[in-house]
């Protein structure tokens, strides 16, 4: 453990922490745009600049390791002035169309603009203009809103191991894009969407489905596989319009394409709501009781007539461990066969 002082408070932190981590552990707020504790530090947005006694120029808290006896100041007129300029510069190259932006209400940039009271912009000038043209089914990419924090690129490389996107060009023309600026063609895990601090990356399925303030959040577990990733369903007007996952969960907020974007079935009109039994060549709606009785009767009948090994059970990766355990138990003990298998083996 090391002892250092942040804004006059003496605190103890683990060796090897960064100033930002130390501050966060002790609930001292430092604004950031490009930081994500789950990704490698980047130091690009420059919002977490702090002053350290004995160091001539301000340094980024996210990249500076703590040292014994360090004295850090996270806020003062000078520092806030620099941060203000940084936000103002970002906004000078931003569409600022919060009124119609999907991200409004959940946007870090918007919050910062609010915090610094930036109505006017001293730096108004050329703004990047890009055609929005991407036919992929899941991710809306509005690169005019991109602030080049690089989080999407880092998550795609560091977490997903895909590197479907990269920062291309340089300087003012730098741009996050797939190779040769083609349409995005990747795993569509949507991790990039989940880390984007602005409205540059949005899920297509959620566009225009409801403002942030109208959303009810429901925590649940992903039904797709046995991993059991934690999900938060965003519900508007009794419809699931988006799925997110908090970084504090077991799955650290990471999901796959199914968990993140595979939620349309919930409100699909084709979805089955009750069991069906084929009677006279046609499916008919029946109650659960009737359906289960029917299954039990038929299984029992087959076992009695042809023996238990005439029956096989095939389970699904979508079931939990507990469910799979019960399933094989049912087959071995109740039906009396060892014919049990699982889709994940194929």
């Amino acid at each position, binding site marked *: 453990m090391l002892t250092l002082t942040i804004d006059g408070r003496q605190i103890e932190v683990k060796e090897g922490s960064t100033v930002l981590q130390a501050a966060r552990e002790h609930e001292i707020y430092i604004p950031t745009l490009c930081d994500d504790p789950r990704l490698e530090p980047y130091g690009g947005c420059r919002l977490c600049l702090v002053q350290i006694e004995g160091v001539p120029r301000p340094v980024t808290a996210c990249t500076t390791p703590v040292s014994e006896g360090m004295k850090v100041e996270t806020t003062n007129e000078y520092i806030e002035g620099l941060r203000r300029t940084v936000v103002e510069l970002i906004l000078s190259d931003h569409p600022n169309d919060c009124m119609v932006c999907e991200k409004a209400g959940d946007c870090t940039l918007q919050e910062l603009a609010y915090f610094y009271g930036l109505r006017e912009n001293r730096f108004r000038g050329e703004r990047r203009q890009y055609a929005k043209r991407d036919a992929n089914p899941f991710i809306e990419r509005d690169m005019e809103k991109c602030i080049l924090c690089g989080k999407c690129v880092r998550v795609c490389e560091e977490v997903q191991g*895909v*590197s*479907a*996107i*990269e*920062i*291309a*060009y*340089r300087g003012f023309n730098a741009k996050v*894009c*797939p*190779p*040769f600026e083609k349409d995005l063609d990747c795993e569509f895990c949507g991790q990039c969407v989940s880390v984007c601090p602005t409205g540059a990356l949005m899920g297509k399925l959620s566009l225009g489905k409801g403002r942030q303030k109208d959303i009810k959040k429901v925590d649940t577990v992903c039904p797709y596989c046995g991993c059991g990733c934690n999900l938060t369903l965003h519900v508007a007007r009794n419809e699931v319009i988006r799925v997110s996952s908090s970084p504090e969960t077991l799955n650290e907020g990471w999901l796959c394409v199914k968990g993140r974007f595979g939620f349309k079935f919930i409100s699909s009109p084709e979805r089955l709501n009750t069991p069906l039994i084929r009677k006279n060549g046609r499916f008919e709606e029946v109650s659960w009781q009737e359906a289960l009785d029917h299954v039990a009767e038929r299984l029992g009948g087959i076992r009695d007539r042809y023996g238990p090994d005439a029956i096989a059970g095939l389970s699904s990766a979508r079931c939990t461990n507990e469910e799979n355990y019960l399933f094989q138990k049912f087959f071995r003990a109740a039906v009396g066969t060892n014919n049990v298998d699982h889709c994940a083996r194929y």
Partner: protein
Amino acid sequence: MQERLEEILKTYQEDEGNIISILQDIEESFGYLPEDAIEWFSERLDVPPAKFFGIATFYAQFHLKPRGENIITTCCGTACHVKGSERLISSLMRELQIPTGEDTTEDRKFTVERVNCVGACSIAPVVIINKEVYGKMTADRLMKEIRRLK
């Protein structure tokens, strides 16, 4: 193309190359970076094409489009700037009728480029025509050279 790419791959493996050196070899061989070549390497080396694209667009040396037969490079270092390199460029663009925003003539005969200081400041302004360095260039002499190449 295939053969040349195999050769480049070989030098890369023997000579501790990296993506940049591969791209340099491709550029040297074809005058630009054909998309196919990049895809080929991306597959052979199992490096995502996005990485190649990111690097190719970062460094000024690389071109994604084919360039002209004759490459005219104007030095834009401080000394050349003070001695009127901008003027040379505008007369070049006019003479070759290259529209603003472009750098190559329609018939792909000429490409006009700027380069950061080539370090021959004492003989500014410097123009490099097809790798040959010309010092103390004037608009007149430059036009003569261009017409000769036409």
